[in-house]
């Protein structure tokens, strides 16, 4: 059988011909093994929840893959691939199944393949009942040390060298609030100027159009001036996000203008996103309705709210905290490679080129 010769040969073929190394993918395998062992040893239940669902996540800026299930009578059920397993895992928290974790595929449409993105990617989520997000931070520290130890470093999991830079995993990781980060790295007072960020960004020399929002200005300042500086000595937990940027998180007990949300940065790379989970059903429903409205305005695929999820919160869910962590990016870090493509046997751009 003949086939068209393409410019880029498949990864498997390059590995066969000795032109690419399989080592990063083998490191990935060890990262997954170490992760699973880590949670099992700590008494977490491993769960599997559907990837093909009727009601996917409502995040306004994520687009879904849409498909359908047809039965033998020709009945048609529209369905979607999950952008994260979050709703199902929280229903299980409400059922009293906890602590729990899952390693599964998630899917995001309308994104390009890049060194940090693939439309199909592997996500690790874990949730703890009767816990706050500070405990999830400690889980992250211990998980990365456990992976580093499993990969057999001389430093017994205390340091890891990524692209020539040694990151200290052993001491307590940096905890930096979003407000402190903006002050320290961008000279911006978020407390005062959050809703004037478009003007602040324009004064800094960024091109700002009348339709630009404070969130766009926030991200432009963040991506250009702050993100590259995070997680360079130890990993960094960036925490306490403006309340408007955390639809599934609860407000901080100390300050109602910020939410219990953190992101984990390692060597400038965003690895994880965590919440002190919102457990108030009425508030959750209001936020989901607002997000659905925003999806419509943005021209995103429209679908109904997962009322079973809201119902789960209404039936009572203990104060909980949870996190989504990118396995591909984590494997990229531990394999010491520049792109998640190198820890994927079949990156999407090879399949669809």
């Amino acid at each position: 059988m003949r086939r068209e010769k393409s410019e880029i040969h498949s990864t498997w073929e390059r590995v066969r011909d000795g032109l690419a190394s399989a080592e990063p993918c083998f490191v990935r395998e060890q990262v997954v093994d170490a992760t699973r062992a880590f949670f099992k040893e700590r008494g977490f239940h491993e769960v599997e929840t559907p990837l093909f669902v009727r009601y996917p996540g409502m995040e306004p800026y994520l687009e879904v893959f849409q498909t359908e299930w047809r039965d033998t009578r020709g009945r048609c059920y529209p369905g979607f691939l999950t952008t994260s397993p979050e709703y199902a895992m929280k229903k299980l928290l409400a059922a009293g199944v906890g602590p729990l974790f899952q390693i599964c595929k998630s899917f995001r449409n309308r994104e390009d393949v890049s060194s940090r993105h693939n439309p199909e990617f592997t996500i690790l989520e874990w949730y703890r009942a009767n816990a706050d997000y500070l405990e999830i931070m400690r889980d992250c520290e211990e998980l990365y040390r456990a992976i580093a130890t499993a990969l057999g470093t001389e430093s017994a999991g205390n340091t890891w060298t990524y692209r020539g830079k040694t990151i200290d995993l052993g001491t307590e990781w940096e905890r930096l609030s979003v407000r402190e980060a903006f002050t320290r790295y961008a000279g911006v007072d978020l407390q005062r100027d959050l809703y004037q960020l478009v003007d602040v960004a324009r004064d800094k020399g960024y091109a700002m159009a009348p339709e630009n929002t404070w969130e766009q200005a926030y991200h432009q300042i963040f991506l250009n001036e702050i993100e590259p500086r995070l997680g360079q000595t130890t990993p960094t937990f960036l925490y306490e996000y403006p309340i408007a940027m955390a639809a599934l998180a609860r407000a901080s007990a100390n300050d109602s203008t910020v939410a219990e949300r953190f992101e984990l940065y390692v060597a400038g790379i965003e690895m994880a996103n965590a919440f002190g989970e919102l457990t108030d059903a009425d508030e959750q429903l209001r936020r989901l309705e607002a997000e659905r409205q925003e999806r419509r305005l943005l021209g995103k695929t429209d679908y109904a709210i997962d009322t079973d999820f809201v119902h789960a919160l209404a039936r009572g869910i203990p104060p909980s905290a949870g996190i989504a962590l990118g396995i591909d990016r984590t494997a990229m870090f531990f394999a010491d490679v520049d792109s998640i493509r190198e820890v994927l046997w079949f990156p999407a751009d090879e399949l669809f080129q």
Partner: protein
Amino acid sequence: MQITTSEFRKGLYIMFRDDPYQITDLEFVNPGKGSAFFRTKLRSMKTGRVIDYTFKSGESVEDYPVITLDLQYLYRDGDHLIFMDPETFNQFTGEVAIVGEFADFLRENETYPIMLHGEEIVGIRPPKRIVAKVAEAEPVIKGNTATGLTKTVVLDNGVTITAPSFIEAGDTIAVNPDSREYIERVTS
């Protein structure tokens, strides 16, 4: 002319903060909550320095007008490359550094798509694939049929690359001149 981020691609020339730059790297970023962004590496046409900058999706910049002409490569003079327009016989001189890694693959009297800003050579659009003859290769060890082995071969233009072990001197192979990676054997 204004161009927006949706038209951005690697190799494009743009005006950024009043100076000309070439986009050398381009990646989509989605911060999750907030619309999309494009992370770029921009090489200054003036200093050669590379900077990182992240644009909002939909942002627009002024383009830096560049035309592409098929020019014949004549010869190299120190740090300069001399090209000629085969229609008008006008000669153009460009610095080797502007052509970058592809300079090693240039063959005299062949024509290449050359990018000009006015009379100034600002770049070359290198082919994704060139074919070259293998000048030197270590001999194949008889009976060694194991896969996954590579060796170093020298091409007839003097460039050294890594190729599968079955490649021998005299073979013609296709190479990506940008990454210097072996693509395939064209003849045996």
